[in-house]
C-alpha cells in the first residue's frame, strides 16, 4: 500500500501543535525549578485554576475575551505569589523532598477549592478562537491547535530572549547558578523567588486557557501537568529551550505512535521515550549536567 504523505504531514502538524501546548506548561515547571530548585507537581492544578478563572470572567461575568484573558493571567500570577509567600517560602531550608510533597498536597487543595467554587461537572470554555478550518496547502490543521502553537512559540521565544538580555532574567539565572554568589552581588534572592512563582503562575494560567479551549475544563484537567513533567525531564528540568524542544518531541512521538500503532500505545511510547532519555542523558537533552563526587 502506498504511504499517504499528506496524512503523515497532517499528523505531524497536529503533533507539533499539541507539543507546543505541552511546552508552554513545561515552561511553568522550568521557571520555578530554575529559580528555586522546587519541582512543583501542582503546576497542572495551577493551570486548571487559570482555566476556571477565565471561565468565570468570560462565561460567568460575561466579560469580553480581551479582558477575560489578562484578568485570568493576573489571577494565575496572584495564585503563584500567594503560594510562594505562604507555602513555599516557609519551607526554605527544608529538604527538597519535603517541598516536593508540599506541592503534591497543594495540588489536592486546589482541586478541592475548584470543586467547591465551580462544582465537579466538566464543562466547556466559551469559544473565542473561531471554528473556520485552517489548511497548509492541502493539509488540515485544527484551528485551536494552530493558535495554541503560535501563542506558545511567541511566549517561549520571549522568555528565551528575556533570560538572555533582561536584567531580571539575568538575576534569575544568577540565583539559579549560585544563591550565595547572587546575594553577594546585591541580587534580592527572595524577590527572584517570588518573581519566578508569579511568572510561572501566569504561564500556567495561559496554558490552562489554551488547554481548556481545546479539551474542555474539569477539576481533573490538572493531570495534563504530568505529561508536561515528562517534557521537562526529556528537555532538561532547568532549560527553557529544553521545554520547547522536549514539548515538540513528546507531541510528535504521541501523534505518530497514536496514529500508526494505536491510541492505546500513545502513553507507552511517551514513557518509553522518557526511560531512554533517563538512561542516556539523565539530566535531559538540555539540562545542566551536575557531577556529584562521593
Amino acid at each position, binding site marked *: 500500500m502506498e504511504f499517504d504523505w499528506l496524512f503523515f504531514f497532517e499528523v505531524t502538524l497536529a503533533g507539533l501543535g*499539541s507539543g507546543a501546548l505541552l511546552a508552554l506548561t513545561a515552561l511553568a515547571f522550568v521557571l520555578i525549578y530554575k529559580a528555586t530548585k522546587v519541582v512543583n507537581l501542582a503546576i497542572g492544578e495551577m493551570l486548571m485554576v487559570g482555566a476556571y478563572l477565565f471561565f468565570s470572567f468570560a462565561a460567568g461575568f460575561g466579560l469580553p475575551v480581551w479582558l477575560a484573558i489578562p484578568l485570568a493571567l493576573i489571577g494565575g500570577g496572584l495564585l503563584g505569589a500567594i503560594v510562594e509567600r505562604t507555602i513555599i517560602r516557609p519551607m526554605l531550608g527544608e529538604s527538597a523532598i519535603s517541598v516536593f510533597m508540599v506541592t503534591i498536597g497543594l495540588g489536592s487543595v486546589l482541586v478541592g477549592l475548584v470543586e467547591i467554587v465551580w462544582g465537579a461537572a466538566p464543562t466547556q470554555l466559551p469559544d473565542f478562537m473561531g471554528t473556520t478550518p485552517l489548511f497548509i496547502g492541502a493539509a488540515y490543521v485544527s484551528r485551536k491547535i494552530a493558535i495554541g502553537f503560535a501563542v506558545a512559540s511567541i511566549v517561549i521565544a520571549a522568555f528565551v530572549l528575556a533570560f538572555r538580555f533582561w536584567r531580571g532574567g539575568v538575576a534569575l539565572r544568577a540565583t539559579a547558578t549560585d544563591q550565595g554568589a547572587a546575594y553577594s552581588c546585591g541580587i534580592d534572592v527572595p524577590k527572584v523567588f517570588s518573581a519566578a512563582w508569579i511568572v510561572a503562575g501566569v504561564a500556567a494560567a495561559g496554558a490552562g486557557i489554551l488547554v481548556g479551549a481545546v479539551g474542555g475544563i474539569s477539576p481533573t484537567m490538572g493531570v495534563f501537568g504530568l505529561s508536561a513533567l515528562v517534557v521537562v525531564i526529556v528537555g532538561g528540568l532547568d532549560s527553557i529551550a529544553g521545554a520547547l524542544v522536549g514539548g515538540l518531541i513528546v507531541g510528535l512521538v504521541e501523534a505518530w505512535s497514536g496514529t500508526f500503532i494505536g491510541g492505546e500505545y500513545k502513553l507507552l511510547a511517551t514513557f518509553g521515550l522518557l526511560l531512554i532519555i533517563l538512561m542516556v542523558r539523565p539530566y535531559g537533552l538540555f539540562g545542566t549536567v551536575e557531577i556529584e563526587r562521593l
Partner: protein
Amino acid sequence: MTITRRQALAAGIAAGGLAAGIRPGLAQANEIVIAGSIPLTGVFAFAGIGINDGLSDYVKLVNEAGGIAGRKVRYVYEDTAYKVDQSVAVFNKLTGSNAVNFYYSDSTGFAKTINPELNRKGSMIMAGASFATELNDAKAYPNQFIAGPDYSDMISVLLTYIAKTQPGAKIALVNSDTEFGRDPIATTEAMAKKLGLTIAEKIVTPPTSVDVSTEVLKLRRANPDYTIFHGYVLAPLPEFMTQAKQLGLKTKFMGTFWSMDNSLWAKVGEAANGFMGVMPYRYYFDEDAKAPMLAKIRQMRPEYVSTAYMQGFLTAMLFCEAGKRCLDAKQEMTATNLKAALNSIKDFDTGGLIGAPITITGNSIPVGRVYQYDAARKVMVGQGDWINVSKPS
C-alpha cells in the same frame, strides 16, 4: 454486699458493651439500611453528587409514605473520591456499624474487588454506578445487579437503532483506553456483523488526551455514517464534533449513558447539536408520556436534575422494591432472598422513570432509548420507541 469502685467500673463497661452490641440487632428489626460508597469528590464527583441526591430523595419519599412494611429506610454513606481502596474502607466501616441490606457501589473496580466479601457476608445485595458488561453475570456476581442496561446492551440499542434507520451503515468506534472504554468493543463488533453494519474504523484515545486532531484525521479518512463514543463523560467529544464539522464530515455522533447528561451538553452550545446517544432513563423534563414519579421529582426539585440523579433514584427504588417483596413473602432479608425478590420483578412500572415496563430476570435491565440533542431548545429529544435488547433465554 459492697461494690468496689473497680467492680462498678467493670459493670459499667460491660453494660455499655452490651448496649453497643445489641444496637445493630435492634436496628435490624426496625429498619432497612441502604449504605453507599459515594464518589462525592474526585474524577466522578459530578455524578456522585447527583447519585447521592437521587438515593436520598427516594428514601425520603418512601419514609414519608410510611416506609416498607412498617419499617423505616435509613440511608448512610461516605465519600470515596472514586478510589477503590477508600471505597473498600467505607464498605467495611458502614457494614461494620450498620446492619446493611443494600449497598451502592461507586465503580466497576470496587464492585469486582468487594464481590467475594459480599458473597461471604450473604446479607445484602449491591448495585451501583457501574454498567460493566462483566457484572451482568448472575453466576459470577450473584448478589449484584445493574439498574439499567450494561455497556454492551447500550451499544446494542444504538446499533439496533442504526440498522433500522440506515441499513448497512458504516460505523467508527471511538473508545477511551480505560476499563470503562474498552468494555463493549468485542461485543459491538459481533453485534454489528450480525446486523449487517460495517465497523470502518476503531480509534482508541488515552484517558489523558487533550487534543484529538490526529484521531479526527483518522475519522476523516474512514468517513463513517455514525461515530459511537464510549468511555467518556464530555471531553473530548465536543472537540471531536467541532473539528469533524469543520472538515465537512456528515457522520452522526453517538454516546452512551455517562455522556448523555443534558446539562453537560447545554454548556457546549451549537457544536452539540445533533449529538445522539442511549439513555436507560427518561430525562427530568421529558413529558412525552405519563410519568408520576418524574412529576414527584420535579415537585421535590424544581431545577433540572442530572441523569446520574435518575440512576441513584431508580437504584433506591429497586432496592426498596426487592425489600418489600422479600418482607411481603415473610422471608428473612438475606442476599439470596433479596436477589430472588429482585428477580421476581416482571413488567414493573417505574412510574415513568423508564418508558417501558421492566423485567429483571438476571443482573440488568436491558432497555434503552435513543435521544438526540436539540441545541436550539437545549434539550435531548427522544427518537423512536424504547428498545429492549434482552437476549432470549
